[in-house]
């Protein structure tokens, strides 16, 4: 069974006169880590937003773990670009938010789950702080923990590190790989940063044309666990340059 499956999916924004996603089919194996790379505005976020149910496709079927997403909620955890921690809630209360919406747990149980999740992402003891007191990297880790608590084996991350400074981003990438290896969830990660995509993914799903009719799957020639040293290897450098070349063709016709 596939973790995620798109079957002839199309989407058109009301203000457009063409389908930005045009008859797209692809699938993702359980436990894999894929990055979707593409130029800004190519429609890669649209793919994620349809998967988590925020947008309804014009045609086609999207399945998560074999079941169509239409009608089922909470099949996947969605983490948008901004961390979107609610500033009026403490970090622990922010993490408890998806549990509150789902209902069925007492306040103490929610609190306990939130504390556990915080410890897992290395933020033990930060539960009573407000998001404003955390650094950018810590906020993203808290947002990631919240996404994990939202449930579902499929995590959809929409450029989560793009607002961070370079060094924080680099350490967050290593941290994310580490988390992924520990939990064995399926991750679909959107980015326009080619280096990030090459470092993280098992195989890169590249958008080579807009509107999106297909995702080109390009395997990354490196085994997990990875360190940043692997980026210096010639085949990795070559892949990175190829991808950059491919994306540049789309912005400079």
């Amino acid at each position, binding site marked *: 069974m596939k973790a995620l499956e798109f079957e002839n999916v199309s989407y058109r924004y009301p203000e457009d006169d063409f389908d930005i996603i045009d008859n797209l089919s692809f699938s993702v194996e359980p436990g894999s880590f894929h990055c979707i790379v593409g130029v800004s505005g190519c429609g890669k976020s649209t793919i994620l937003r349809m998967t*988590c*149910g925020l947008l309804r496709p014009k045609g086609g079927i999207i399945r998560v773990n074999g079941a169509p997403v239409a009608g089922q*909620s909470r099949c996947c955890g969605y983490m948008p670009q901004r961390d979107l921690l609610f500033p009026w*809630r403490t970090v622990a209360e922010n993490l408890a938010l*998806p549990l509150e*919406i789902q209902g069925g747990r007492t306040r103490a149980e929610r609190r306990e789950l939130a504390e556990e999740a915080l410890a897992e992402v290395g933020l033990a003891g930060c539960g009573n702080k*407000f998001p404003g007191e955390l650094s950018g990297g810590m906020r993203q880790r808290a947002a990631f923990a919240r996404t994990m608590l939202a449930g579902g084996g499929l995590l959809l991350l929409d450029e989560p590190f793009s607002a961070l400074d370079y060094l924080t981003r680099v350490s967050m990438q290593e941290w994310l790989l580490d988390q992924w290896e520990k939990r064995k969830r399926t991750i679909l990660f959107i980015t326009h940063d080619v280096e990030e995509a090459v470092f993280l993914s098992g195989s890169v799903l590249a958008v080579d044309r807009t509107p999106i009719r297909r995702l080109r799957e390009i395997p990354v020639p490196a085994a997990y666990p990875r360190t940043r040293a692997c980026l210096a290897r010639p085949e990795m450098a070559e892949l990175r340059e190829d991808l950059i070349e491919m994306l540049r063709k789309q912005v400079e016709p």
Partner: protein
Amino acid sequence: MNRAGRSGLPPLIFLFTLLALWQLGAMEVDAAYILPTPVQILRRLWELRGPLLTVHLPATMAVTGLGLAISLALGLGLAAVMDWSPLAQKCLYPVVVASQTIPTTAIAPLFVLWFGYGIWSKVLVAVLMTFFPITITVYDGLRSARTEMAELLETYGATKWDVFRKIKIPCALPYFFSAVKMAVPIAIIGAAIGEWLGAQSGLGYFSRRMMTQLDGAGVFAPIVLLSAVAMAAAGLVGLVEKRVVKWRGES
């Protein structure tokens, strides 16, 4: 902020300069029945403290409190309904704005005819003047909630009511406190105007009675008392706000 801005000294000096200018000007004019000096007003306030504090201040505060409570209920309700339903917003918004074009002081005598000299005609004046800023400010606060946050909640399976409770209300809370801070002095003014037009007690009524006796200091004394109460009330709301809204200023 620099040191001069942090200390309370410069505003105090400024205030005292203004009062001193008033004192000198009024002494120059020398017509206490129309322009009393600050010292005369304070002296009169002290002389009249009995009836002012035991009879008239409680009467005005009762009108203010009732008016404020009704305005809050009405304003919050209208804001929530307008936020919930775009149709209701289209219908109600123009009416709410139109209600503010009514020159309250001009039609307030009618309220006295409708509701008599009792408390309700004054409460109506206070409500008419205060519900508008509350409605509009709180409505803006509810609108200020970011759609991204609502979308995130939707991916958790949230209903419209969840979004309202967990995002809109907290987002509107700082706006709500701004609204109350605005509304408190306006409600007091509304109450005083209501009393001025027809009442048997209250600071507005007392001020008007002193006017008929050409007692300038007596006209000002209850007004000074009103200002002091309004400032104290706004300060109190500010203190509550500081306890409740800890995240103001960051998004």
